[in-house]
């Protein structure tokens, strides 16, 4: 199981899902309409490292973070 957390304005509690790669995570998240609308504009981190490939392999206990558009300052 991996943990998916939704940062900032997504305003959703973390979920635990079964996934071997980020492609699996994408497939699962697309099934929730509330989350699907955020995916296009979200960056992704695995265990607090930014990633940009869907074939990143996941292991039990990994943490995936979805980061929506930012505006500091």
């Amino acid at each position, binding site marked *: 199981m991996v943990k998916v957390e939704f940062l900032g304005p997504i305003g959703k509690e973390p979920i635990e899902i079964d996934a071997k790669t980020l492609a699996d995570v*994408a497939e699962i998240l*697309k099934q929730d309409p509330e989350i699907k609308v955020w995916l296009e504009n979200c960056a992704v981190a695995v265990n607090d490292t930014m990633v940009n490939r869907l074939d990143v392999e996941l292991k039990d206990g990994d943490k995936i973070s979805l980061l929506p558009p930012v505006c500091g300052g």
Partner: protein
Amino acid sequence: MVLIYQGPIDVDQLLSRWYNAEHNRNYGAMVSFVGTVREEGGIEALSFDIYRPLLEQWFDGWKTKLAKEGALLAMAHSEGDVPVHKSSFACAIFSRKRRVALEMLDAFVEDFKANAPIWKYDVIDGERIYAAERSTPMAGSGLLSKEG
């Protein structure tokens, strides 16, 4: 490390702290930026969420980059509500000569706006509304919406 304030930054105390910590280390230039909440669009405050682990990583990347130029970087940001006319963001760069500091301040603040994991909300009538239109997708956004 980024200094995180709960609510507004005490700018007087912060700039004084930075200046006095560094001005006798033989840096010739200190530049600083302070961002203050403007009264517009009927807001009473802005409010901020921060994801600290990635903010620290992003900040450390900049600190290392500046250290290679012999410069030192400091930054503070607010979490939670910051009323209009109070300040939510401050940073300072110290360098031997002015050029590095002047150039890097602009580059740092622009990258901060685009890539620091901080989310902004307007506070209107006590309600917290995500500032979607003013927000920027971070580098690499959209990964999970790609067709696998």
